[in-house]
Structure formats: structure tokens, C-alpha cells
């Protein structure tokens, strides 16, 4: 992480402080901490955090380039629904792991196709980015379950197939780290690699600097002979692909599609936006913030196992409440200067 940045250090300190405080409160209440913070909990937290982290990194790239992709939630719904439908088309009642991987790949390709259209509306036709992003969410909420009804005759799919854990021989035997990283869904490792890659690309390559310049100082980038709009197209399309992948991962981990209510995505795309704001537009910071929200999401199982009586319905609200608190306390993020401004080249 970029520790030179005072803001990032401050956030990190505050986040660690909050977690320590919460732990102290739990001890004071007499809760069996050791039974709550199990290796299984860490593993579930990582799995729950992956879709949020992927969408978050995508959204961060778009915003760094100067375009607000508020449609992450909608693209995630399409990613999940399309992966489910494709798995069914490929493998029918008993799809294999190979079917799942192919379906995920195709679903991401479809997300790229949708995002190209979205990017054209935003960049070429200067759509209102906030309203158009909301529209993508609504379209997803309509056509996601619509797809499910067409394919399965119901908004929820039957059990399809979930991603099998991959065990790395040797490394899996390590205490704690072994089961958490080397005996789990390969998508967790993939997300970690993508987060590191996104950080390196953004801060250590020429293209990363172009991306930042497109959001901070488009005129300078233009003067340097790089097309601002090309950079923005690339960033927005990447964000859609990542959100589509996030939805695909969500489906792969749960093994079936849920299209009732707000669908199985259930706000994770919105939480992804908050994750990158909290992570100060740093891909690693965003991934760390996703862990926090993922952990809150999985707390319910821990509470149940140790017998703490809090109604499920209320425990499920923790991540949303945390988002409101995080936004209010750490909202002082500096947005890219040219965010939301369509760029018109002089020539």
C-alpha cells in the first residue's frame, strides 16, 4: 500500500483502531471471541469479500479516469444471471467445473459487450453519469430475473454447480494461511492477484499514469498526444468486465442464482463503490475495505454457531449500517478533478 500517503495511513490506523475497539467490546460483553474468530470465518470472509473487491477495483479504475460508473450493481446482476443461464445451457442438470469456467468467461465477455454500449452513451453522447448508472441497475433488476424466468420458469435457479476448492499440496498444510489461501476457492487467489496487478498497473506503468491523468488533468494528457476518450473507454469497459466477473464469482461461490427481491447481488455493487472510497482509490485499499464488509456479511454464521441471540434479519444489516458509518466518518476522499466532465478535444 502507498504508505507515503497521509490519508491512507490515517484511514488504515482508524480502521485497525475500530476493529480493536469492537474486539474489546466483544470481550467486555463476555462473547467467546476465540469461537467467533475461527479459521473458517476468515475463509468465508475472504470468499464473501471477493465479489465486492473485484467490482470495487473496476469502479475505481473508471472513476480514476474521470468517469463515474455507478452501474456496478447492475453489471454484477447481469454477470451472475448470465453465468447461471450459461452454466445451465452448457451442462443442463449436472454441469461440470469446466462448464462453470467457460460460463464465467462467456458472461464476462457479454459484460464487456454491454459496457461498450454504456461507455458510448457516457462518453460519446455525454449521458448523465449518475442517472445512466442507476438505469443500468434498474435494467439489471428487470432483465436479470427475466432471464431466470425464461430459463428456469422461476426467478431462482435450481442448484447448479459451485466452484470446487483447490488444494495446493504442501502449502495447504501451513497453519491458518494454509486453509485460508491454499485450500479454498481459486477465485480468492485470482482476486488477490488481480488486486496486486491492478495496483502495479495503476502506480507503476505508463498506462496507469495515463489513466490517472485522464481523470486529473485531461488537457495535459491531450497535449501529450494521448486520446483522453480512448483511455476513458478502456477504463469504463474494464470496470464493466470486473463487475461482470464479480457477479460471475458470486454465482460460482453460491452455486445457484437468486432473482427475488434485490437479486443475489443485494447491494454488493454499491458496497464496492464505498470500498474504493474507503480505500482512497487504491486497489489494495479497496480490497482491504472489501474484507471488512465481507467479514460483517459472514458474522451471522459465527453468531449462530456460538449461540449469540441476534435475529438474522438484523445481523444481515451490519454491512449496510457499516457503509453509512464509513461514508459519514471518512467521506473526505479527494475525487479526481475532472470526474463527470465529458472531455472534448480541441482538434
Amino acid at each position: 500500500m502507498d504508505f507515503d500517503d497521509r490519508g491512507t495511513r490515517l484511514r488504515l490506523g482508524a480502521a485497525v483502531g475500530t476493529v480493536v475497539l469492537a474486539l474489546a467490546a466483544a470481550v467486555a460483553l463476555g462473547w467467546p471471541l476465540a469461537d467467533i474468530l475461527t479459521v473458517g470465518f476468515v475463509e468465508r470472509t475472504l470468499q464473501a469479500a471477493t465479489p465486492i473487491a473485484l467490482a470495487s477495483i473496476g469502479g475505481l479504475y473508471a472513476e480514476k479516469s474521470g468517469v463515474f460508473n455507478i452501474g456496478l450493481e447492475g453489471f454484477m446482476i447481469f454477470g451472475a444471471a448470465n453465468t447461471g443461464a450459461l452454466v445451465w445451457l452448457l451442462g443442463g442438470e449436472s454441469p461440470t467445473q469446466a462448464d462453470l469456467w467457460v460460463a464465467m468467461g462467456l458472461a464476462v465477455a457479454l459484460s464487456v459487450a454491454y459496457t461498450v454500449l454504456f461507455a458510448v452513451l457516457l462518453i460519446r453522447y455525454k449521458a448523465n453519469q449518475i442517472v445512466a448508472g442507476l438505469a443500468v441497475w434498474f435494467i439489471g433488476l428487470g432483465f436479470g430475473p427475466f432471464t431466470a424466468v425464461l430459463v428456469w420458469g422461476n426467478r431462482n435457479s435450481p442448484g447448479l454447480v459451485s466452484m470446487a476448492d483447490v488444494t495446493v499440496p504442501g502449502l495447504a498444510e501451513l497453519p491458518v494461511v494454509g486453509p485460508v489461501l491454499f485450500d479454498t476457492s481459486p477465485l480468492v487467489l485470482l482476486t488477490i492477484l488481480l488486486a496486486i496487478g491492478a495496483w502495479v498497473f495503476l502506480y507503476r506503468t505508463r498506462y496507469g499514469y495515463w489513466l490517472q491523468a485522464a481523470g486529473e488533468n485531461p488537457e495535459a494528457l491531450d497535449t501529450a498526444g494521448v486520446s483522453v476518450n480512448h483511455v476513458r473507454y478502456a477504463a469504463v469497459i474494464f470496470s464493466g468486465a470486473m463487475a461482470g466477473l464479480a457477479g460471475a464469482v458470486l454465482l460460482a461461490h453460491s452455486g445457484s442464482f437468486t432473482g427475488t427481491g434485490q437479486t443475489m447481488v443485494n447491494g454488493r455493487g454499491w458496497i464496492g463503490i464505498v470500498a474504493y472510497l474507503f480505500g482512497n482509490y487504491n486497489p489494495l485499499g479497496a480490497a482491504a475495505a472489501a474484507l471488512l464488509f465481507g467479514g460483517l456479511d459472514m458474522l451471522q454464521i459465527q453468531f449462530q454457531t456460538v449461540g449469540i441471540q441476534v435475529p438474522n434479519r438484523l445481523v444481515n444489516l451490519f454491512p449496510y449500517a457499516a457503509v453509512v458509518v464509513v461514508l459519514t466518518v471518512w467521506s473526505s476522499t479527494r475525487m479526481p478533478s475532472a470526474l463527470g466532465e465529458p472531455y472534448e478535444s480541441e482538434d
Partner: protein
Amino acid sequence: MSGAGSNRTRAVLDRIAARLLDASVGERIAIAAASMTLALLIGLVVVAFAGYDPVQFLGNVAVGAFGDANALARTLKFTTLFILTGVAVAIAFRAGVFNIGVQGQFVVGGFATVIAILQLAPFLPTGATGGVLLMVLGTVAGVIAGGAYGALPGILKAYGDANEIVTTIMLNFIATGAVGYLVDGPFRGEGNRAPNTARIPEYVSLPRVVFDVPDFSVVGLAVTLVVVAAIAWVLARTRFGYDMVTSGHQIAAATFSGVNAKRTVVATMTLSGMVAGIAGALFAIMIQGYYSDPAGIGTYGFDAIAVSLLAANNPLGVVPAGFLFGALDSAGSHIRINSDVPVQLIDGIIGLVVLFVAVPELFRMAAERTGLGGEN
């Protein structure tokens, strides 16, 4: 740092508002009609691709919305909800505040109405007098609850600089979850097998005039239109409304003329939440008569965003836009029963309407190409 960030957001919103404002009324109506038509056309193409008959589908839409007295009553029932929630959205959007939380404010308001009526009923006479009193008090409770639930993100935005788009969406989830828990547990009606509150008394209901149906009364529609007129008057003719709209579009000018921008944001969100609360109260009293798990209640507060945008955030424009959406939703109820086409298509079409409304440039360019745009 915080100030710079919020100024930046404000500048973005200002530009958006400026772009929305520079469209003339005629142009806005043309854009709304074009968006609606294009979205419906895409919907019909999807219907055809999914292997159904688009002509028959269109016929089902017409019959479902206006086919007979029952269909028309159903259309007007949804229309009242869309107008009220649409006005709630319009108040905020006009003031440059993106209140996406009307659904949550609607839910909290409706729940408060039912609880207030149930708690107060034993202390008041039964019959018509008690019924009217309870409806008024219940609505007041709904307005207060909706207003308070709208004020919260307003306060967080004004004094904590928290982006209201995200906080209101989160508060929607929290409202649905919390009210869902309450109707399932502490407030579940005695002997109810479903997670519902007890029913409000029989005499607490609007009179059946013109339409003899249990869940729509012309009185409800009349109340709705009075609210629209009142809000339109507040926005156009009062100092408060003027401050709201100017601080939405011209923050610098508003501050210079002595408007307290932070307090205006909170007031805007409160007023928006109060109108959502009226919608909630009407839903609770006129339509349902009890409160159920909000996860299963229509997403009027979300669709209201489309209604308001289609009306260019003008409270009077919300009336025809709300009627259009009422007809669409009513058609959806009909299609659910009488057609194999998945009714979720209607939600998708609503999303497309919002998408096209967001891109006026698309239609302007198309108009220029085809020579229809005139002097534009």
C-alpha cells in the same frame, strides 16, 4: 480536503443541472416521449426474441391497463402511488440532492401509519368519526416517520459530507430488513401465520366512490392531487422553494444571497421523505390495511425515480408520468396472470426509460441527422 471534495461534487451536480435546465419544455416532452417509445420498442423486440408474440403482448398491455372498470381502478391505484413517490423524488432532484431512498422512506412511513392506527384505535370512538381521526393521525405518523428517515441522510450529507446516493440506498436495505424483522417478530399480529401486523379496523378506510373496489378510492387520488398542487406551489411560489431550487442549481449564488446550504439540504430531504411518508400511509390505509414484509412490496420508490426523470423533475409533470407508469404496472399485473411473458420485462423496460432519459444528446443528435430538430 473535505471541502475540496464536496465542492467538486457540487460542481459536477451544477453542470448536470445546467444541462438539464437548458432544455426547453417542448424539447423535454419530446425527449420523454422518445425515451418511452424507444424503451417499449426494445421491450417488444425482447418479447419477440424470447419466442412470444409482440402484437399479442401489446394487446395485453392495453387490456391490462384500461380494459374495463377494474383495470382502470387498478391503473389509478398504482398511479396515486407513483405520483406521490414521484413528487418525493422530484423535490430532491430539483434541489440537486439525489434521494434514491424514497423506497425506504415509503416503507418506514407506511409501517408507522399502521402501528399508530393499531395503537390509537382503542382510545378513539369506532365508526366514521373515529375512522377519519385515525386516518389523519396515522398519516401524520407516516409523514413524521418518512420525514425523519429522509432527514437522516440529509444530515449525514450536510454535516458529514456522506454521499447521499449511497447512504440512501443503504438505508433502503436497512428499512426493508428492520421493518421485515419487526412485522415478523415484535409487531406480528396475534395468531397470524404470515409475517404481517394485525389488520387495522374495518372502519378505518376510504369511501368507495365511483369505483367499487376494495383497494382504490377516488378520495385517495384527490388527496394525491392536492399534495401535488401544494408542493408545486411551495417550489414555485415560496421563498423556501426558491432557496431549494437555487441552491440545487447555483450554489454560489444561493450562498451569496444568504441561503444556508446545509440547512437547505436537510430541509429538502425532510420534505422529500415526508411526501414519501404520505405515499406510505396511503398504501397502508387504502391498499393493504396491514403491514407485511417490505421485501414483498412493490418497488414504487425506485420506479418513482424514472417517473420523476421522465417529468424532468417537475411536480406537475409527475402527474402524467405517474399515470403512464401506473398503466404499465397495472398491465404487469394483468400479464402476470394472463400471459406467459415474464412480468419482469416491465421492470427492464422501466430501466431502459431511465437510461434514455439520461441521454438527451442521443435524441438531439438523431433529430439533427433526420432534420426533425428544427433550429436545435
